[in-house]
């Protein structure tokens, strides 16, 4: 039995231990906000957070997250808000994504946001070089200039 928490809710799934977390989320739990892009941890579309760290779920077997806390794009705001009932529906990061009109097709953006959120959590004021080395997600629409702008708008100088 694979057991882990997704956005604070415990899940017990009778699935193979080697099933990648991506497919457990999408096909078993019907949580489709996390995207399939390449299947080999190259593009980052499947990025989720495990205990707050960005992880590419397409190559992460569920056995590797046994008992862990997973946050997906669907739960990013609620997990950040914790028990605060007056918290907004979006994190400041997601709002910055709207303010800077970042997404185009949007397919890569769940992963992009999960990666950026993890970066800012451990480095609130990343340099351009740190953004470059941390955000290695692929966006075919070319939203990179706006991703950079949105992250920088939140950086605490």
């Amino acid at each position, binding site marked *: 039995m694979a057991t882990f928490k997704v956005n604070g809710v415990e899940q017990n799934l009778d699935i193979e231990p080697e099933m990648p977390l991506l497919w457990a989320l999408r096909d078993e739990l019907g949580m489709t906000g996390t995207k*399939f892009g390449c299947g080999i941890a190259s593009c980052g579309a499947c990025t989720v957070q495990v205990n707050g760290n960005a992880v590419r779920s397409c190559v992460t077997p569920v056995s590797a997250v046994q008992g862990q806390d997973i946050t*997906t794009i*669907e739960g990013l705001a609620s997990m950040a808000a914790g028990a605060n009932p007056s918290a907004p529906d979006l994190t400041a990061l997601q709002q910055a994504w*709207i303010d800077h009109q970042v997404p*185009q097709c*949007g397919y890569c953006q769940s992963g992009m946001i999960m990666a950026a959120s993890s970066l800012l959590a451990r480095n609130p004021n990343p340099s351009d070089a740190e953004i470059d080395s941390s955000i290695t997600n692929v966006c075919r*629409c070319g939203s990179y200039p706006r991703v950079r702008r949105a992250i920088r708008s939140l950086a605490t100088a």
Partner: protein
Amino acid sequence: MNITRRRFLLSTAVAGGGVLIGYSALKPSKHRIANSDLAGEGEHYVTSFIKIEADNKITVYVPHSEMGQGVHTSLPMMAADELDAAWEDIIVEQAPAIDLFANGDLVKGFAGEYGIPSFLTGLVNASAASIAELMNLQITGGSSSVRYTGQTAMRTAGAAARQMLIDCAATRWGVASDECSTQLSHVQHNASGRSLSYGELAADAALLEPPKDVTLKQPAQFTIMGKAISRVDIPAKVDGTANYGIDAHSEDMLYAAIRLAPVFGTKLVSVDAGDVLSRRGIKRVIEMEDSVAVVADSYWRAKEALKLVKSEFEASDADNTSSADLFAGFERSLAADDSSKDKEVGDAEGALESAADVIEGSYKVPYLAHAAMEPMNCTVHLHDDIVEVWTSTQDALGIKARVAKIAGVAEDDAVFHHSYLGGGFGRRLPFNWNVIDHATLIAKEFDVPVKTVMSREDDMQQDYYRPAVASNFKAAFDANGVVQAWHNRFTGPIQVPGASHIPYAIANQSIHVVDGPTHVPIAAWRSVDHSQQTFFTESFVDEIAHRSGINPFQFRMQMLAEHPRHRKVLEVAAEAAGYGENLPAGHALGIAVQESFGSIVAEVAEVSLDANNRPVVHKVTCAIDCGWAVNPDTAESQVEGGIIYGLTAALYGEITIENGRVAQNNFPDYEMVRMADSPEIDVHIIESGEALGGLGEPATPPIAAAVSNGLYILTGQRVRELPLKNHDFSRSTPIAGV
């Protein structure tokens, strides 16, 4: 713009048995169809695009796919502005895939601009279809939604609706219509101070026959168009709720992984499935003419099991073919010069014979995959004599018809479920149907929904590719060093006429195309022929400029005396980029310009080499004359994206053929520009007031030439083949004096 009776009649005639969107507001019969199909209790239509409810909520139906280009915002902006609605009152909905919302005007717009649109040539070739037969499509492509559907249908519908609402209010008040005005979803009678909301008038308006002529606003009257309105699709794209085709989900759904013939056009011979059926969740192994699929209760289980399935495909003449063989074939075709005229001006052959000097350049570019972020997929559910389909597509009506045909049900019994597209770029246009066809064949074996998903490897190896092209140039100079002839032979097919033409005043031009058939399937790829041809022509023009001893910017300006819009974008881009000013040591600027899809774009790329002598693009300065911009912020993001899409192709893009099949597998060997090598981009939108130009594609073509023209100045090496990753810039001799 007056919608004249002549135009109205012309539009009606083109529609034939179909329906012309936007003009349906002017056809009472279709008006009734709209009401019966879409209006709910207490709702009324005044045109087929616009639904006004009693509570003053105004729904605009958008007949195009949203793939990030912002069309779900820009088209409603156009309708709402002409309607004089308050933007806050607007609800945007995807128009359903029914022929009422076919976008024949788009096709007609293309027919006027280019002849039959490139992405429809497959159908035209197949059936010699007339324009009228192309009406039953719902295409999103060709940088055309705003230009055609927006300008013809959305604005007309909004203006017609506004006039009808005024007439209703005037009748109710017993005053003349021209005493009334509109703003913020209300009609006002200024003399008496009375006011009625559109919602209060909607029931009356639905009974009116729409006006035959409407007058569209002048730019000074715009209240919504021209403003940077936030895109309506973005909130769902930051919280995970945006729904793409691949997100179709149900409890009883099955999933298919598929292996298509690796050598294009070959058939399946045999399958050895071993004991995969005994694996957990595996439902069936399905053999098709050119493929084998495994169906399971999870995509991962299907994909893992498929790895264990052995399959043999028939041998083919193409089995030993490589990219080198294909390009050698191109060279033979070019050498034989059994060519068709593309453009001929003056006597280029004669000028070459009498020339004091001739330069030559042989260029080529490889095949490219689209590599949309959402891998190709399609979910089909056959049940109760109907078929339902979920897929991300640039042509919902076409998909519906295709799936119905393969499923063996009537088109009216097919239901299409819309979604956002995780990228299109031409891959999701009509005729690029491999995943659609196979998903339907697989789903025919089940009575539950079956989702067929291509792996990234399938997606890359079973694409319909941007054509590989070879292009040979000669230029003739007279004794004074002035260029007198432009001679170009390139391999076809031509997908978009005119892409190889140059705007420059060279007296003698001979531009011909030769056949370049291969076994590799091809399709439109963002900006179609312009992406290859602009690399060729703008690089060779640069060669001519350098040989002429004139700075490449100045040379272009001199040769474009008849093209003020080209000159303007060049001037704006060059000045903003600091052209001619001091650059950081080891940096150079390259410039290129191209007109495509109704817009004219100049780009200046600031380049250098890194410590390993690999090209670095620091900044791209772009000036685009797209006439005017409906949503300037969306316009900018389309330009940014178009540049990065073209830059990926220039730096890295290469699909090669080995043993008849695609050699590349996934992003590691089909590399993408990522954050680290994404340049700063500075966009200047020039509002010339000319007709609206496209925005989705025109920024892609110039970038490859702009970058390689800069690299020439930096290194003395003329890049005549892409991608740049294959070039060795370690031995560099900068070009002085530019």
